[in-house]
């Protein structure tokens, strides 16, 4: 995420106080995530003991659902807010650690296919959302934000683009609300469609990584299908994230050319500034695993650390999805976003099915 807010001066003088303020919210994330895990295990254990056949509801969904209930039914005390905001941090740390589950050969194979599909997905999404934005008479910069958000990586891309194209706060709030609401719907819809179409773990993971916009929701949607699908979803989504700088730079140049944004002086620095550094961390860990820096047990530990980090993320996804806030944003951006997302989901599903036929994902 590109947003940054200066810490209060008192905390700037006392790093310990700055860390302390995150603890209540992080503990809340951990408690919700752990409750989700315990619920899954308890229900499965009960069903097994009583010979009941009930569908397995993954800890991911429980963690998100508990977060949703708390976030929407209660007013969360302010003391928890800084820690809750760290769910993005845990997501990125989790992605870096997930690199332990990929040897470089996997990254090259699936990553190579991802790059080809991502290029097609981004091109299609940008054209589609721009067309729909014009059709529904949305403000041009709001259309740009929705296009960037749905093509690349959700909230992070919108925030990065907002600064680069000098968009209004209101426009970015609209776009973020639409992307988050649609991400919440995707969490439920994608696994259902994936199972109905009998997609393989790799094909489904690739699809959710390509089509679900926000990284946290893409990870959750993949993991809801299976652990293996979640792994591939993260890889595909990470490939998409890596393009953020290029897409945002394109929009920055476009709006600067129209005299409605600040000119980009140093394109290289701009790209590096926007490039998600956790992608490099993911690749570095994958490389270290490939050259046997870690033994098998250590790789298992790194993979489990990644799962714990994602657990905090999933709890945060539920907590920060506030339906009342989304409702205030009005229907039109949501309708444009929903139409666009349905078409993008269909487009990417077609791409994945085609890739699966050609390369046997």
């Amino acid at each position, binding site marked *: *995420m*590109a*947003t*940054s*807010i*200066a*810490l209060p001066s008192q905390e*700037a003088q006392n*790093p310990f106080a*700055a860390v302390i303020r*995150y603890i209540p919210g992080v503990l809340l994330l951990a408690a919700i995530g752990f409750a989700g895990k315990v619920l899954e295990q308890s229900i499965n254990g009960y069903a097994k003991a009583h010979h009941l056949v009930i569908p397995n509801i993954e800890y991911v969904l429980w963690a998100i659902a508990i977060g949703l209930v708390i976030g929407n039914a209660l007013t*969360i005390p302010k003391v928890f*807010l*800084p820690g*809750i*905001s*760290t769910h*993005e*941090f*845990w*997501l*990125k*740390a*989790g992605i*870096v*650690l997930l690199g*332990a589950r990929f040897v470089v050969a996997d990254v090259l194979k699936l990553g190579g296919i991802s790059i080809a599909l991502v290029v097609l997905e981004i091109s299609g999404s940008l054209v589609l959302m721009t067309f729909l934005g014009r059709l529904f008479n949305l403000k041009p910069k709001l259309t740009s934000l929705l296009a960037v958000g749905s093509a690349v990586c959700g*909230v992070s891309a919108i925030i990065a683009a907002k600064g680069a194209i000098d968009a209004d*706060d209101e426009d*970015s*709030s609209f776009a*973020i609300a639409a992307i988050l609401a649609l991400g919440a719907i995707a969490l439920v819809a994608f696994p259902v469609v994936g199972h109905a179409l009998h997609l393989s773990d790799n094909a489904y993971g690739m699809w959710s990584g390509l089509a679900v916009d926000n990284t946290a929701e893409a990870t959750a949607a993949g993991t809801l299908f299976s652990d293996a699908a979640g792994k591939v979803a993260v890889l595909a989504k990470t490939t998409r994230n890596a393009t953020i700088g290029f897409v945002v730079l394109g929009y920055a140049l476009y709006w600067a050319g129209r005299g409605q944004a600040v000119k980009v002086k140093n394109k290289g620095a701009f790209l590096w500034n926007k490039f*998600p*550094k*956790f992608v*490099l*961390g993911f690749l*570095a*860990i994958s490389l*270290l695993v490939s050259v046997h*820096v*870690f033994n098998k*047990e*250590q790789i*298992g*530990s*790194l993979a*489990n*650390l990644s*799962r*714990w980090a994602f657990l905090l993320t999933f709890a945060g996804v539920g*907590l*920060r999805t*506030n339906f009342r*806030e989304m409702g205030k944003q009005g229907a039109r951006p949501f309708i444009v976003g929903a139409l666009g997302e349905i078409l993008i989901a269909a487009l990417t599903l077609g791409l994945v099915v085609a890739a699966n036929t050609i390369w046997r994902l």
Partner: protein
Amino acid sequence: MSDENKVAVSATRLGLSLDVWSVITAFALALLVRIGALKHVPW
């Protein structure tokens, strides 16, 4: 955008972004696993 999304999403104290902090944290954990300080992380 709500306050919780805005607050502290970028740790700027040392001029490092949230991204970089997440990479540093992940590598610190990986180092602890490598040197055996974190032996078996259960799931």
